[in-house]
Every structure is written in C-alpha cells, then in structure tokens.
C-alpha cells in the first residue's frame, strides 16, 4: 500500500512540475523549478504565467482527476458494475442543465454558472434518492436503472435547451459541455479542495467496507456492514464530490471510467490501496492530458476531455489484452 502510494505520489509530483513548466509560451523546467522554490525569480511575465495561470490550472487538473477517478472507483464498487463511472447516475447531466440555465440567464462563469451547475446536480441527486428510498435502495439494479433513467431524461432536456438557443450563448453552452480547465483561478480551487479533500478522506475510511461490498451485500451484512447506511453515505459523498468537480470545469469524460480499471489491472482489487492510488493516478493523468491539450495544437488549445479518451481508451485496451494472456 505504502509503496504504491509513494510511487504514484512521485509520479504526480513529476507531472505537476512538468505541467507548470510547459505551455504555449515555451517550456523551461529548470527556470520553473527555481521560480517555484523561490530561489531565483524568473522575469515578470514568466513569473505571472507560472503562478497565476499554470499553477492554478495544474492544481485544478489534479483535483478534478483525483475526484473523478475516485468517483468512478466508488460507483464501480457500489453498483458492482464495471461500466459504472462518476456520471452514470445522471450527476453530470443534472449539472449540465443547471449550467445551461445559468448561461442562458447570463450569469458569470464563476461563481454564477458554477453555482447553478452544482444546484442542478444536487437536484438530480435528491431526485435519485427520492426514487430509491426504502427497501429498493439495497437492490443495486434499482439504483443503477434509476440513475440511467435520470441521466437519459436530463440529457434529452439539455438537447432541448440547446435546440432552442440561437445566439452566441450557444457557443458558451457547447464549450461548457466539453469540459474545460482553462478557467482555473485560485479561489475556485480552494473551494473545490474544501469539498473534495474531506469527502475523499471519508471515502478512504470506508475503503475496507468497499472490499466487503464485492462479496455481495448479504455477506457484507454478516461481516458487520450496515449496507443501507454505507451505500447512502458513499452515494451522497461521491455525488457531492463529483458535482463540485463538474461545476468547476464541466464534465470531463473517461477519467472516471478508465483510471480505476487501469489501476485495478496493475495493483489488484484492494480498495484500501485503490482509493489513494486512484486519487494520485487520476490527478497525474488529467495533468498529463491537459499538458497535451495545451501544447499539441499549433493554435489555441483543445478540451482536455478529448485527450483523456484518445489516450485512455487505447492504453486501457492494451493493458486489458496483456492481463488476459
């Protein structure tokens, strides 16, 4: 457990340094390290770029990657379904509706649209909890099916909102839906950390319980797990964490699906190791993808979500094939 965590921490640290060093204005690792450590100040412009633009962006990418991977891991364990990912229960489309309504009302990106997005996903979560309260909560397929239905409904509603929007707000909506890390600023990051970190600690404390969930809920009950309460805690904690992430940068796809599977293939099924590993590995992965998204295109940049899937899918297939043979 410790070895994996230390190795992944080092990897994350390396990607963060790389992420701060590289950008469209050129890259200089040595200069960046000196500036970050405060030994030698770079010229004023680079100093501003490092501290005001790249560092917040890299931190946002780390937080987003960590939260989404952890979200995927929890939902895969909770729903006992390998296709589960952090958005499967409709949380992202719920916040999409919130965000679009915010944009249509002409709110500012932060906090306006973010608050609207968070409100949207919380409304979705409440709807989902209302639909599955009582005994049915214990039947995993009820939760999964309810979530998928909520998701489908919200997705259709988003399409409806898009189809009736015509002016330049349409561009803002599409941009938001693609997921974007470039809006990062420090207050937003503090706020997101204040949500993500305590919830991640809570989930880590339940990581052994998630192992027991894999044996089926009945057997988990005979091993001292109050499955009803734990399911509710995990569902709510994860949903809030993912909602906060989506609210701050839109729905970045694929991370939450591929990183837990990738790490499970490499380090095994023990959630006590997987929880920290997913946070560190997911963080590093999104930072790396964001570096590529910023530096690959000759002009401008592409959404990080495009890169996460374009690299992640082939990588995952290769590992899957290797583990099978």
């Amino acid at each position, binding site marked *: 457990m410790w070895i994996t965590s230390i190795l992944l921490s080092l990897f994350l640290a390396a990607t963060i340094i790389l992420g701060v060093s590289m950008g469209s204005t050129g890259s200089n690792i040595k200069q960046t390290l000196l500036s970050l450590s405060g030994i030698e100040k770079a010229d004023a412009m680079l100093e501003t770029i490092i501290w005001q633009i790249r560092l917040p962006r890299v931190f946002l990418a780390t937080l987003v990657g960590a939260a989404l991977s952890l979200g995927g891991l929890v939902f895969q364990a909770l729903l006992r379904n390998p296709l589960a990912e952090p958005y499967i229960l409709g949380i992202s489309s719920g916040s999409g509706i919130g965000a679009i309504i915010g944009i249509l009302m002409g709110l500012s990106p932060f906090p306006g649209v973010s608050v609207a997005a968070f409100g949207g996903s919380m409304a979705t979560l409440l709807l989902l909890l209302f639909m599955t309260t009582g005994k049915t909560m214990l039947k995993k397929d009820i939760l999964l099916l309810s979530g998928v239905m909520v998701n489908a409904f919200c997705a259709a509603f988003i399409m409806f909102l898009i189809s009736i929007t015509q002016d330049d707000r349409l561009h803002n909506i599409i941009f938001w839906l693609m997921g974007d890390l470039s809006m990062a600023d420090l207050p937003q990051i503090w706020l997101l950390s204040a949500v993500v970190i305590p919830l991640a600690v809570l989930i*880590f*404390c339940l*990581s*052994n*319980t998630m*192992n*027991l969930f*894999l*044996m*089926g809920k*009945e*057997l988990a*009950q*005979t*091993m*001292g*797990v*109050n499955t009803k309460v734990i399911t509710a805690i995990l569902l709510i904690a994860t949903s809030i964490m993912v909602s906060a992430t989506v609210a701050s940068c839109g729905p970045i796809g694929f991370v939450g699906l591929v990183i837990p599977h990738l790490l*499970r293939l490499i380090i*095994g*099924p*023990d959630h*006590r190791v997987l929880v920290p590993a997913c946070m560190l590995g997911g963080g590093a992965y999104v930072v790396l993808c964001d570096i590529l998204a910023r530096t690959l295109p000759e002009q401008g940049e592409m959404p990080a979500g495009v890169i996460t899937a374009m690299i992640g899918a082939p990588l995952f297939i290769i590992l899957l094939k290797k583990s099978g043979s």
Partner: protein
Amino acid sequence: MKPSILATSLHAAYGPLSVLQDVSFSVSKGDFFIVIGPNGSGKTTLLKILSAINPFQSGKLEIAGIPLKKYSRKSLAKIMALVPQTVPEDLPFTVRELILMARSPRMGLLGLEGDHDIQKADEAMAFTGVEPLADRKMDQLSGGERQRAFIARAICQEPQIILLDEPTAALDLAHQVRVMDLMERLRTEKGLTIVMVSHDINLAAMYATFLMLLKKGRIIKMGLPSEVLTFKTLEEAYECPLLVDESPLGNFQRVTLVPKKFINSELQAMAQKDRG
C-alpha cells in the same frame, strides 16, 4: 447456561406470502443443529433471519441471550458468521485476502489488519487445510476449494455460531465428508455452535445432534435424528417413495430414495406397515 439461539414462534412473510409460521426452537452451545426439508420449506429464509439479513414479522429471537434487534451489525458479526450457499464466482481476491477480510468487524477505522489478524487468518487456513491455496485467486479454485476457503473465512471471524447454507450441495463425496468433519471438529474442539441447512438427509443423520424438519414454513418434527428420520415423517414431508432402514455404520437411520421402477409389492407392504 443461555442457549446460543432461542426462537419463539417466529413468523416471516414476503408480502402476503407466509414463509415461516410459528417456528420455535432452541440451539445449545456446541450443538450441531441441522435443518432439513423440501424446497421452499423456508430453510434458507430461516438462516437469513438468524443472520439478520431478512426481517421477521413477529415472534422473539435471541442470540446468546440477547434479542437479535439489540445487536449492531458489527457486534453480531463478532459472534456469528455465515457460510453462504452461493458466492460471486468472479471474486478478484486471493484466498488469504478473502480470509483476512473476516477480521473487518474487529478492525479499526481504516480497516487495516495487524499481526494478530494475520495470525488468526493463518490459523484458520491451517485448520481448514487451505494453506497451499493461500495465494491463489478465488476465481481459480474448484468448488470444493472455494467452499473450504469460505469456511476458513467464517472461522477467521472468530464467531461462537457458524451458519451454513447447504455447504455440501455442490461437492463431491470426499469434499462433503471433509466439510462435515471440519464442522464436527469446530464443535468438539472449539465449542462452536453449528447451524446448517441441508438437503442431505443421510449426512444429517450421521452428524446432527439435533434435527429440525420444515415443510411450507412449519416445523413438522424436531428432535434427535432418530426421532425425526422415520418413514412416516419423511414421507409426509417429502411426498415421495422412500426406504428408511438402519445404517450399516451404526445406530442411526439410512434413507434411500426409491425410484418408480424399484417399487414392488414387498416395499409397498413395508410402507403400509410403517404408516401404521
């Protein structure tokens, strides 16, 4: 001394469908208590009620002298362990990891095992003879090996009572005896109480210290195997042609199924006599 399990007129139902009616029994410490009965008799439901997976509608149920409802899941897990009939076949854990999980009710907030937990897991593996399998993945085991791993897991939980749901149903002859002998040793060497649901009447006849025959949620007969396993009772419960005689191994009954082609006048005369 307080009985391990004391049930007084238990009633259970799934919606309007009654599955247990007026079931009362008492299991003493160190008993080998076996529940038999045809399919749909409520055996598995009873086991799920005992392990607090399913609720019951009325009646009283005490485990080690304390009402079941007063237990938290954790405190119940410390005195009672379940060996389920079916387990997920795609469990990604090794045998050792599976067995160590049984320590969860006794582990701290982070669920990290200590040296004592590892020692208990080693003991459970030694007791059940699964040590050579310790680092094998659960999904690579045969049915018999998997069953033994789950029994080791139950032992590692350090319970006073072990509940088993048809543990021999999918096993070959050698493994059946092996599982039953393990339970017998747990009972005699460690003083554990064994509660087992089984379809195998002959194994039940040889191992049970107390036998309960259920049908359609009601107790048909309860007592020593020799009292329960009579032709009359079994025919009433199972509604099929049977032959009950003495086992060549000793002073207990042997039950033989009689397929249609073997039924003759001699057997019919015997049956008529036994019906009284």
